[in-house]
């Protein structure tokens, strides 16, 4: 009685429904393209071709996906504890400090495999720190995390401007960015991974932090479903009153969950800083923290869903850039509209088609049951 709709088979729940949602999103996006007088099939071709057409394109798609896996996981971890962390953007931005410090310190004397672990720790530390403050404010002072994390995004942005124009900028340089790292601060590309499939990564910055993202996804799965801490987080996420009854301390879980979330968001910084630009620039996060919310929503806060969702958004980013390049009358903003439609249908309106599908399945079940009966008779 608690759920008015009967349970659906797994492949419908996790396969068919997301696919239908996605199809509708693209249908509506197609209409928008039509509206500006362009051919939607051509746009679709550029989208798919731009994302998968060449090894290099695939490399870009997966490069973006790497970023979104981190920020998606960050949102998901907090969400399991019932916390809505909108501060991924700021946490990733500040996380960049950790990466930059490790690289600036050791890039000239150490190989990447020494610098990388330190950069991981640094990024996670600074990201966690940036999430700790809102977590602590909620636990101690009751300031709502949704509000404080948004505020901390702005504070992060000002802080980084200050640091990049005053502190981390090399002397005499005009650009608000750190110096370019030496070899020790550059992550190796995953060209070998693509070449297994006979693909050439070309100029795409598809790098080893992709593997780190996959490992983080596995780690999050273990954390949430296989550890005591994860159990406590889920209890609090589902029912704060049951958590209180079980002796789970809300303030402790709030702070820890936020720090893990922030740490994951911070690790996103590794990908652009050490994997692509080899220096820290202004605004290197570019909205990835917010995309993480959509990715977590679409992936149902499960690592197994977040990875494909992140890849989908990688496709939209990379393929979208291609559309904007090939079809000048479709501007960058149009691409954002298409991405918005995907979020709308796959995330927010996730349940739109569920009742109808459930009914269809109930009817089908009825019919097969009837067939079985007549056969039995």
């Amino acid at each position: 009685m608690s759920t008015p709709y009967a349970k659906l088979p797994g492949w419908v729940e996790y396969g068919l429904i997301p696919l239908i949602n996605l199809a509708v999103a693209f249908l509506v996006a197609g209409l928008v393209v039509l509206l500006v007088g362009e051919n939607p099939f051509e746009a679709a071709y550029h989208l798919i071709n731009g994302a998968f057409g060449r090894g290099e394109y695939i490399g870009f798609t997966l490069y973006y996906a790497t970023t979104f896996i981190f920020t998606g996981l960050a949102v998901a971890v907090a969400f399991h504890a019932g916390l809505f962390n909108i501060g991924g953007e700021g946490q990733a931005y500040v996380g960049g400090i950790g990466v930059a410090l490790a690289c600036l310190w050791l890039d000239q004397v150490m190989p990447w495999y020494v610098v990388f672990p330190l950069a991981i720790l640094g990024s996670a530390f600074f990201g966690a720190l940036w999430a700790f403050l809102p977590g602590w404010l909620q636990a101690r002072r009751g300031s709502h995390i949704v509000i404080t994390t948004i505020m901390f995004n702005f504070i992060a942005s000002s802080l980084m401007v200050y640091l990049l124009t005053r502190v981390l900028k090399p002397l005499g340089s005009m650009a608000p960015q750190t110096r370019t790292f030496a070899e020790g601060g550059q992550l190796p590309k995953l060209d070998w991974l693509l070449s297994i499939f006979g693909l050439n990564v070309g100029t795409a910055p598809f790098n080893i932090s992709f593997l780190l993202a996959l490992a983080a996804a596995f780690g999050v799965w273990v954390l949430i479903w296989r550890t005591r801490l994860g159990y406590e987080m889920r209890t609090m996420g589902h029912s704060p009153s049951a958590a209180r009854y079980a002796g789970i301390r809300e303030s402790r879980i709030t702070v820890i969950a936020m720090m893990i979330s922030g740490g994951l968001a911070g690790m996103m910084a590794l990908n652009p800083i050490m994997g692509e630009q080899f220096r820290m620039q202004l605004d290197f996060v570019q909205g990835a923290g917010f995309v993480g919310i959509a990715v977590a929503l679409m992936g149902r806060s499960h690592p197994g869903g977040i990875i494909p969702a992140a890849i989908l958004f990688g496709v939209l980013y990379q393929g979208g850039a291609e559309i904007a390049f090939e079809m000048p009358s479709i501007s960058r903003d149009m691409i954002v509209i298409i991405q918005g439609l995907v979020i709308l249908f796959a995330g927010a309106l996730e349940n739109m088609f569920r009742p109808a599908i459930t009914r269809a399945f109930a009817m089908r079940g009825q019919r097969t049951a009837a067939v079985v009966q007549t056969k039995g008779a």
Partner: protein
Amino acid sequence: MDNIAIELRGIDKSFGPVHANKDINLKVRKGTIHGIIGENGAGKSTLMSILYGFYQADNGEILVDGKPVSIRDPNTAISVGIGMVHQHFMLVENFTVLENVMLGAEDSQILNKGIAKARQELKRLEKEYALEVNPDALIEELPVGLQQRVEILKALYRRADILILDEPTGVLTPAEADHLFRILGQLKAQGKTIILITHKLREIMAITDEVSVMRRGEMVATRTTRETSVEELAELMVGRRVLLRVEKGEASPGDVKLAVQGLTVKDSRGVTMVDDVSFEVRAGEIVGIAGVAGNGQSELLEAIAGIRKATSGTVLLNGRSVDVTGHRDPAELRARGLAHVPEDRHHVGLVLKFEESENAILGYHNDPRYLKGVFLDIDAIRKDAEEKIAKYDIRPPNARLKTANFSGGNQQKIVLAREMERGPDVLIIGQPTRGVDVGAIEFIHKRIIEMRDQGKAVLLVSVELDEIRSLSDRILVMFAGRVVGERSPEATEGELGLLMAGVEGRKEAAE
């Protein structure tokens, strides 16, 4: 046979491996009250959900007034005249009564016109069925009894001729339940047909015309109420003879295990809920707290269990003091030998979205036997859950099933198994058998007495006076936050009733 309001033919429904309804046939006569009883998990709610269009039957036919109908969703159910009063009310808390009744049946886009009409219609319904309730009161300010009345009004407003009530008295005080039955009698007199699900056989005997019994998904019998007895019904339900009265020997109280001194609890608005309460519970005795719901019993239990802050007073557990006014830690209390079966299993005692096995460790998840370092020892947890499932006969016996999909009585057994199997020194229990069938009540009562005989101190809160009287060795009566008297379980129902109503108590306090 032309006066059949509802006929079910061969209704069949499975949830995966669980066969919840097996080839059910049922006829409900027009203008009668038809009771449906059965053990927890027998499939009663499932059957009613099919009739109301929440679920689709895998097979079978529904006839309303002799005509086959296909009920795809609650809207079609309403359109053929079927209304349902849910166990968990579906009301908008911050809407008024009138707004709730109209919701979804506004008739016109312009609200003002509709409101005036609805108010008139509501007045008529209230008069016709003696369902007084202030149409402008906010739902959140109404007691549950009145909220339920709003649910009934909602159904009648939509011109329901057939009314389904699933365990309507589970949340009501005895007086509210009496009032509900008067309303149902009135509805019947006006020609409405009523289907009533309840676990309380006394209610069945008092109000129904016919009663059908379900067992393990099957409809096993239908009886005319006048020609049956509580004993026969209990036996039909469970499939064996049931002891409706608990057998227990003399208590042999030992040391004081739980001592409460001058405990006072105020709620968030500063209203005193528990007022200077003192008592002791000894090893090997059951102390029952009787009282009409809402007289501070819940707050008292929560304060002792460390999930609600007390304003003043002391609590000694096993002779050592518990910080009830400052830092409260339920986990520490558990470690010190306190187990707590909370009144509200849905929001406090269980996480409904968890697997059964995950709930079986709630509050005990720090126990090393469920852990390998920081990791959960899933195998150990599942094995432990399966043992409890077997011992407490929890159905279906599946430790991986989502807790929300267990029936109410089986959910209660999950909580009881978890708290009792720990062998605590002190067990505090709120409403142990709310929504639980007679067979399970017998089982739970036996277990509570076993705990006592093993030398545990048991503190029991229940709004069921019968339960308090048959289990307790001593009875404390609470009224308006105070303990207004102590009685032995031999005290008459009338005497306790007066105390519970605050009549005797005031006299006693004055003397």
